[in-house]
């Protein structure tokens, strides 16, 4: 890399508007060769729009694009690809019933005598995979729908490389990955950089960006706030640039002590949809004024456990109690009315009806609960008031109850859901990944609300794959592995490395446990994912149901 070589990509004064909304306002951006450049910003700050301009999906209103020093204009992604730019979208663009091989070559099939030359394609892909240490060539004949999300993502990357991409844009690549897969991806990015590729990596997660990128450009409200070297900045500084104000990572000390148990399970076992035991003999207790964290690699039975707690699934064995009363066979609606609120794992599919406005969405889950419903009749004015209250209290943008839910950003959708779920004064909250895909500002807000709720006396079950979230919120952490709780640990006194080992199914040795006393300060440091890297990836499908 010489100082004189033109940057791989240079964007000059890019402006892009949608109607009255300015998504990018004269944004400058410079991607050096052989570097990893993170584009950091909250949801809706214009990151993806800027990259879609570079990728030829949108045409900019003003400004110029330079690739390798040459001014270029792209009418379509095909043009961008021809210039060596590849983009891996947040939602993968793969044809699910087709095999990995077919997906990779799609549109660029090597032809021999009018037929697709699969052998040539296979050879070429295998060569690519060997060069970068990809495992994708193990699955060439597997239909994409059978692969887990991490592998699908690598298929996307191989697809771009196969098309000759020198510059790769990854849009929120870690949003769908487990901590272990994230680690693998970051290694892969290093590998690609070492081989001479330049990478742009869109994210709103501070840790990741600090760990992976060389340089970081922060966007806020369509403006490029600043570009900094990762080595010279901090979480605190980045968060301030992103949000535009100081963000506190400190949590207030708790005041209330845990009270009576509110939700309990007794030897709960669930046989999953494929006949495998997904949850085995789980005893769980959540008390009032307590947050119980459940840590674990996704696909270890959390989904089934959540369903048994919320009432979406009847367990095969064992019992569930709410305030001492057995509710094992009670369905979702009655549990909801009895005070078990739930933040769904998948907010797009389960949390909101995308086509409904916020008023109608405010009724979701409350359609049999007074005052919104009386003897089966709905009171829409009460619902509307409720929607307005949520919007105000949870700072939902845009503050318009008639806005379509699908038009909101992820963070605002999640704030709305959290507001709605705790709106009817529940005793228990099952919070599954409450801040997944949520920007820093909303994350802080949701965390604060969960802690407040604990002070108000709720028993909260927090299922999360983010260790820092569990650590920040939970009073106790239980680790779930292959359907069982294998250990319970103190969130302050256990390091990320130890948690990672537990999540991989290794019980901590006596020795290691004694050591933790000396390492209690680790809670504030960045996650150390080394240990997590040893966690074997659970093979696909499981989490895609």
């Amino acid at each position, binding site marked *: 890399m010489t100082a004189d070589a033109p940057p791989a990509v240079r964007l000059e004064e890019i402006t892009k508007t949608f109607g009255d909304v300015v998504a990018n306002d004269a944004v400058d951006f410079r991607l050096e060769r052989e570097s990893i450049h993170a584009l950091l910003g909250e949801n809706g700050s214009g990151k993806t729009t800027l990259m879609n301009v570079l990728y030829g999906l949108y045409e900019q209103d003003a400004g110029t694009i330079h690739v390798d020093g040459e001014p270029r204009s792209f009418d*379509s*992604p*095909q043009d961008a690809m021809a210039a060596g730019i590849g983009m891996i979208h947040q939602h993968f663009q793969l044809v699910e019933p087709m095999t990995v091989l077919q997906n990779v070559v*799609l*549109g660029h099939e090597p032809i021999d005598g009018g037929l697709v030359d699969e052998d040539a394609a296979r050879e070429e892909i295998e060569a690519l995979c060997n060069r970068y240490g990809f495992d994708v060539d193990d699955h060439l004949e597997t239909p994409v729908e059978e692969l887990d999300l991490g592998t699908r993502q690598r298929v996307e990357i191989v697809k771009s490389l196969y098309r000759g991409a020198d510059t790769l844009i990854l849009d929120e690549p870690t949003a769908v990955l487990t901590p272990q897969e994230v680690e693998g991806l970051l290694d892969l990015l290093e590998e690609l950089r070492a081989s001479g590729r330049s990478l742009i990596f869109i994210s709103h997660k501070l840790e990741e960006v600090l760990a992976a990128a060389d340089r970081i450009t922060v966007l806020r409200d369509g403006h490029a706030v600043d570009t900094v070297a990762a080595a010279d900045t901090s979480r605190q500084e980045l968060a301030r640039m992103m949000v535009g104000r100081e963000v506190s990572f400190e949590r207030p000390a708790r005041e209330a002590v845990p009270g009576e148990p509110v939700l309990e399970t007794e030897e709960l076992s669930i046989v999953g949809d494929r006949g495998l035991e997904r949850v085995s003999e789980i005893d769980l207790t959540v008390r009032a004024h307590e947050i119980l964290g459940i840590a674990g690699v996704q696909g270890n039975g959390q989904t089934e456990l959540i369903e048994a707690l919320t*009432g*979406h699934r009847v367990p095969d064995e064992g019992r569930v109690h709410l305030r001492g009363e057995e509710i094992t066979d009670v*369905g*979702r*609606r009655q*549990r*909801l009315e009895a005070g078990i609120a*739930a933040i*769904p794992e*998948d907010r*797009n*599919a*389960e*949390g*909101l*009806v*995308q*086509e*409904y406005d916020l008023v109608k969405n405010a*009724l*979701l*889950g409350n*359609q*049999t609960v007074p005052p919104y*419903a009386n003897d*089966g*009749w*709905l009171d*829409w004015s009460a619902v509307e008031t409720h929607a307005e209250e949520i919007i105000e209290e949870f700072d939902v943008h845009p503050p318009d109850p008639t806005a379509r839910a*699908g*038009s909101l950003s992820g963070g605002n959708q999640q704030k709305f859901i959290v507001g709605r779920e705790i709106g009817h004064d529940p005793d228990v909250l099952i919070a599954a990944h409450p801040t997944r895909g949520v920007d820093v500002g909303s994350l802080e807000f949701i965390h604060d609300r969960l802690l407040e709720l604990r002070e108000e006396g709720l028993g909260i079950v927090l299922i999360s794959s983010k260790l820092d979230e569990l650590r920040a919120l939970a009073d106790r952490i239980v680790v779930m592995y292959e359907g069982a709780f294998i250990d319970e640990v103190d969130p302050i006194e256990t390091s990320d490395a130890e948690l990672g080992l537990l999540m991989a199914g290794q019980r901590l040795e006596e020795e290691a446990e004694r050591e933790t006393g000396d390492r209690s300060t680790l809670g504030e440091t960045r996650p150390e994912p080394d240990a997590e890297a040893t966690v074997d990836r659970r093979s696909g499908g499981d989490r895609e149901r």
Partner: protein
Amino acid sequence: MSDDPGRTREALDRVAARLLDASVYERVGIAVGSTGLALLIGLVVVAAAGHNPLLFAQQLVVGSVGSTGAFTRTLRFTTLFILAGVAVAVAFRAGVFNIGVQGQLVVGGIACVLSILWLAPFVPNGPVGGAGLTLVGLFAAVVAGGLYAALPGVLKAYYGANEIITTIMLNFIAIGIVGWAVDGPLRPDDARSVRTEYLPEGVGLPSLVFSDPNFSILGLGLALAVVGVVAVGMTRTSFGYDMVTSGYQASAATFSGVDPQRTIVATMTLSGMVAGLVGAVFAIMIQGYFIDPSGIGTYGFDAIAVSLLAANNPVGVVPASLLFGALESSGSHVQIHSDVPVQLIDGIVGIVVLFVAAPELFRMLAKRTGLGGEKR
């Protein structure tokens, strides 16, 4: 395969997004515009076939609203279309594709006629007895139609059988068995045509306003009342919210505590109850007995187009039914009073259906395939 799949998809996406985002006014505009355009094309076709298009257009108007007789005939068809259209709309709104309205109306109709015929000997003659029997017949039709539709509902909810296939098959079963019964055990010895006994004197809906023996304003009133009940039920009750939400996004409905299986069965039952009423109104208001079901107009199928034209909105079904009723009515007029062949009339009705229903069909398809969806 297109060598440019990304772009094709984008273009499709834009069209789909445009359709999905259309406002109510735009959709009314689309419906009116496409009706007009379809009729215009129909006239061109008529002209191309060597007939006088102006005369044809005039006959269409005369045949639907040109005389009291034509007008009541239009209203008679409209009544049937409203009920059948609501039956379809209820199911479609909840995401359940009930293609079996035709079979359900046949079952409802025969249940209505049989219950009246069986009970008639025990009921005094005269207006009071007649009115009582009429109510019994309507009730029997609602119950029978509901049960006949609940069957595919149960099959779908608990056994995963595709309701489109089962309802279509149940149409054949209903038409076949009722057809056999009407031609066999139920056919009186002195009947020259395939039919049941006549309904007793006094059973029926008095025409009141118009003196058409085959149309009663009470029938239309009944249909409009059903529209009102269904519309209010869908928008103002917990059950309606459950149902419509299931249609929009089943996963979100389930998470909010809706029991998806029970909702499917309930939706099908409700849809079938309304479909049963179509059969009852057909038997009581129009025929006065029951006929070979293969000879009954295809109201249950046309109702799919009616419902699509109305964007599956029960209130929208009323104007849509008026249009279909008028076309049906003028069709039978043109058939008698002009030399335009009946096939051509059916073809023109087909063009209208295609034009007016296609946008809504695309909307539903786009929703199912996720085109025009959550991109920003």
